């Protein structure tokens, strides 16, 4: 299921945490086990030093195994990495102009970003984001954060919808406009979009209050995490951490 489905007939689609329907082993794995695995993977990516190169390759290999287990379509990942490439690519390119330390820092930033984002993409492509948020709402201390995240995500979802609709309006009113013109128009429109999103958030807040919301989200019912799923999550995290640890200290 595409939780945040784009409707922009392929134009300037911004996929936010869109999941794909499927019945792969990764889809079937409990979301909490996936979060454990992702946490280990992210820590390992952060631990791993810039040199030697083999730990990076091993972590990318591990990521590929996860993507294969989730039968994630290469096209979806390519689209997401393409969106990320601007954020990562520009600082990386700039770092190449500096000395050796700067170049190494640029490489480290790029590789770590790609690994962390790749792990996040693998998770969100095979898990329904609201389920993930619901899962975190059961963790003591994280429930407030998950409610906030749900609110932000809903806001992002609305904003995406507004961007898509604005883009459609652009496409209809100026079908031959160059991409640059459209982008400039979109930037200008985003100010009013934010205003509209804020106004809508206000109304959503009122709807919540009118239905009895008192600042606390109703707790979600607990669901048992199977030992098998937890073991898979822990195993993935342990392998990631072993790679990161060996890269740093071996």
């Amino acid at each position, binding site marked *: 299921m595409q*939780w945040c489905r784009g409707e922009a007939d392929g134009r300037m689609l911004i996929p936010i945490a869109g999941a794909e329907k499927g019945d792969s082993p990764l889809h079937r794995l409990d979301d909490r086990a996936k979060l454990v695995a992702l946490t280990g993977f992210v820590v390992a990516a952060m631990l791993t030093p810039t040199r030697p190169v083999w730990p990076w390759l091993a972590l990318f290999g591990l990521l590929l195994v996860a993507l294969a287990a989730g039968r994630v379509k290469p096209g979806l990942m390519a689209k997401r990495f393409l969106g990320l490439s601007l954020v990562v690519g520009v600082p990386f390119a700039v770092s190449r102009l500096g000395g050796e330390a700067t170049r190494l820092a640029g490489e480290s930033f790029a590789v770590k970003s790609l690994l962390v984002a790749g792990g996040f993409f693998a998770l969100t492509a095979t898990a329904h984001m*609201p389920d993930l*948020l*619901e899962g975190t709402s059961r963790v003591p201390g994280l429930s407030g954060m998950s409610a906030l995240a749900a609110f932000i995500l809903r806001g992002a979802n609305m904003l995406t919808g507004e961007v898509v609709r604005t883009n459609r309006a652009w496409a209809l009113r100026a079908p031959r406009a160059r991409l640059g013109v459209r982008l400039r128009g979109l930037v200008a429109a985003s100010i009013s979009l934010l205003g509209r999103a804020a106004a809508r958030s206000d*109304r*959503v807040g009122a709807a*919540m209050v*009118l239905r*009895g919301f008192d600042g606390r989200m*109703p707790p979600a019912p607990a669901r048992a995490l199977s030992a098998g799923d937890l073991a898979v999550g822990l195993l993935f995290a342990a392998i990631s951490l072993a790679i990161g640890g060996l890269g740093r200290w071996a």
Partner: protein
Amino acid sequence: MGVAPVLLVEKLSFAYAGDGAALEGVGFSMAPGERVALLGANGAGKSTLLWCLVGILAGRGKIEVAGTVLAANTKAEVRKNLALAFSEPDDQLFMPTLAKDLAFGPRAEGDSPEEALRKARAAAAQVGLAEELLPRAPHELSSGEKRRAALAAILTSQPKVLALDEPTNSLDAPGRAVLAETLEHLSCAQLIATHDVGFARTICSRALVLVRGQLVADEDIEGLLADRERLVAYGLAAPGVTRP
């Protein structure tokens, strides 16, 4: 009226900051189970009145719902008895799935997950929403389904008064017919704010008319609709069009 009113509004006034009066001395009452159309052109003050009734906007005057006078310490009680359906159902559906959205109110009231889900299912059935829709995300529903979902969401609190703000917005003719049938089957009193005079006529027997924040008519809807000159004067019909 022999029966005690379920909604009583007296001398209600409200002004937005920096603007003139949006409501001025509005007063009316509704009997239990009564369906009343709140008519008026765009900007007449219909939505403002509804927001005042639930205490989101603080007007001057008296609002009493099912015997409880609206005040700072009675808002929760009033909101339980008077539920408001927004003009945009998208603003009212905020949980990840329809089932969770419908269960939100009961859960906030302290019901167990099972009881909340039971109420959610009952409310969905009440407005004719198929059970298969419950696991879906609200934004994936059609306009008509969203409208009924928003209605179901507020019906879970079993309100005594239902206030609806422009309920026919973005609905096609079959959607309007389904909505009319749904509303006709609800036993609670209904205040339906709309500029859709045809829809109001199908389900309401009485009409209130707001013009620039003032209540200018409170009468039988058929009598009002028969008076074309007044409809034009109230902004409810365009000059030169024979039927509203």
